[in-house]
Each structure stands twice: as C-alpha cells, then as structure tokens.
C-alpha cells in the first residue's frame, strides 16, 4: 500500500516537474492543483492572494502607479490633517455655554485619525465636538434670520395683493418712469414766482 502511495507520489512529482518546465504550454491550472494536492504532505502555510498582492505593491511602489498615487494622496491627507489639527489646537473654544477654552486635542487622538480619509472625518467630528455645541438634527427656527415666531410663514407674500392701498408693491400699478411732459403742463408753469406785493 505504501509502495503504491510512494510510486504515485513519485509519478506526480515527476509529472509536476515536467509540466512546469518542459511542457508549460500544455498544462492547466486544475491539473497543477491536483498534482500539488497529491504531493503535499501537509498544506503549505496559509496564503492569501489579496494580502500577498498588497504586500507586493507596498514593497515595490515604483512599479505600481496607482499605489504611487495612493501614497501621494496619503501624504497630502496627512498634511491636511496636521494643518487641521494645528488649527483646532490654536483656535479658542467657541462654546455657547462657557467661554472657557476647550481642552486641547491630545497628540494620540490626532495621530490616531490622521492616516485615512475616514480618520480625517473623525478628526473633524472630534474638533467639532470639543469646541462647538453638538449639531442639531433640524435648524433652530427661532434663530433663523427674518422670521420670528408669529411672523408670516415662509412662502407667503408680506402683503395682501388684493389690497389696493398696498398695491404700490405691484409692478402694474407702480409707475415705472415719470409721466412724459405735455405742452399744457409746460405752458402752465408760471414764468416768475408771484410777488407778494403784486395782486
């Protein structure tokens, strides 16, 4: 039995060697995998193609332009995050409740969030939470300009279009230009102001 296994393994080894050297053009992936399964006493160390691919790109960034671009973006992002962190550290707190300065961001908190875009977003959140009031879900109507409680709701005209006393706001009733001069109006202009002495 073991002799059969041994001869089968040897045949598989022979065949694998020949198919990976002399007859590479005629072999196929399933055949190679079957031969390897026969040959391997124990499975090889776990192999992740994706992880290996990422490692290859990381080790040789000069060969992979996308990786270069990603590296460039990472540096740019790190710079932006550092600038933002500096801004956060230097600006005084703007809390509503207290005028005391907000606690400064710790170096750990900044360095943890710098490397990725998600980290940058987290840094924004962190800065916002530490210096400003928490964002409200909907706008505070009372603090909106132009509208006070009891005012006309947005979307309504501030006058009644039917009311002729307010029709000055309407274009068709409002004079667009002074009325043209007429001959009568010119003739009726007094040439000299009337003297109080002459009747």
């Amino acid at each position, binding site marked *: 039995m073991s002799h059969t296994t041994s001869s089968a393994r040897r045949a598989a080894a022979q065949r694998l060697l020949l198919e990976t050297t002399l007859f590479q053009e005629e072999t196929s992936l399933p055949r190679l995998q079957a031969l390897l399964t026969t040959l*391997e006493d124990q499975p090889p160390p776990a192999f992740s193609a994706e992880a290996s691919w990422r490692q290859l790109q990381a080790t040789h960034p000069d060969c992979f332009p996308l990786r270069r671009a990603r590296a460039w973006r990472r540096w740019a992002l790190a710079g932006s995050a550092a600038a933002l962190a500096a801004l956060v550290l230097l600006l005084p707190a703007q809390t509503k409740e207290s005028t005391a300065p907000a606690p400064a961001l710790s170096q750990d908190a900044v360095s943890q969030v710098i490397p990725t875009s998600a980290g940058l977003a987290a840094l924004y959140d962190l800065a916002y939470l530490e210096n400003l009031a928490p964002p409200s879900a909907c706008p505070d109507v009372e603090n909106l300009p132009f509208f006070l409680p009891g005012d006309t709701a947005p979307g309504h005209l501030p006058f009644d279009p039917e009311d002729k006393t307010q029709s000055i706001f309407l274009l068709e009733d409002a004079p667009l230009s002074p009325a043209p001069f007429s001959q009568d109006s010119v003739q009726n202009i007094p040439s000299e102001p009337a003297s109080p002495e002459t009747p």
Partner: protein
Amino acid sequence: MNSAEASWLHTLYITYAETLYRIACYRLQDANRAQDLLHSVFLAAAQKVPALQAHENPLGWLLRALNYELSHEFARQAKQTAQEQPLHPSPAGLAPTPPPSLGLAEVLPVQLSPRDREILLLFYEEGLSYQEIAQRLGVPVSTCGTWLSRARKHCRAYLSHSPGFPD
C-alpha cells in the same frame, strides 16, 4: 502601467498566485523564499503587461518565469553550499542530504540521447539562454533552437509510453 493594466495584473495574480506559490514551496521547501520568488515573477510580469496580455497562454509564461527564478535560486544555493562546505565539512561516511524535490535530470526519460538531455538541462534547469547554450556547446544559435525543439519532442514521445504519463 496604467490602471487598466494594473487591474488586469491584479486579476492574473489572484488567479495564479496561489498555485505558483505552492509549486515554489514544494520545490524550495521554504515558504518565505517561495513568496519572494512569486513576487519576482509578478514584477517581471508587471514590466511586460502589454506583451503578456497578448500572450496566448499567460500561465505558461508565468511558469516559465517561475522556473527561471527557481533555477537561479538553486544555482545560488549550490554556490552558497560550495562556499560553506570548507568551513563546515560534513562528517565522513554520511551521505549528502537528498534534495527535497526531484531534479529535472532525474525525471527525464532514460532513453534520451546525451545531447538531448544536456540541452534540456541547460535550458530548463540552469536557465541559460539560447546564446549562452550556443556559446557553451559551440554551435550556432539557430542550431541550438532546433536541438532544443527536437529534444522536447523526443522527451514527449518517450514519456507517452511510460505508465505514469497516460496522455
């Protein structure tokens, strides 16, 4: 390499990397070196993506590249062993450690002529180019190509009659 080529190479890697890695592991018995060789193969592929895309058999191309890397690795190991031997001589009477996997010389059919065997070993095991083989054997490069092609044909013919190779 543009993004389309990088994407194509990535697909190629995902498809074939594990099998190539297992072959290298089996031949070298060293997972770390196998990973290094795999990366070397795909770095070579990254330099020739357009040619590889037009190739009719990318797996064959990758296997040839892996074989080339393996032959260089074996040569390096042999050189290293030769350098270390005077410093650490093996005890007399002990047989040398057997290779972990078969060598090509052991699996070639015994019926092959010495010339066929030599040229196959020079090309596939030592990884020499046609020019180097022609220089070593003292023949024109074109003759070298003809001899190699004929040797492969003979090898296939002998193997087709052996019990381990039904097809």
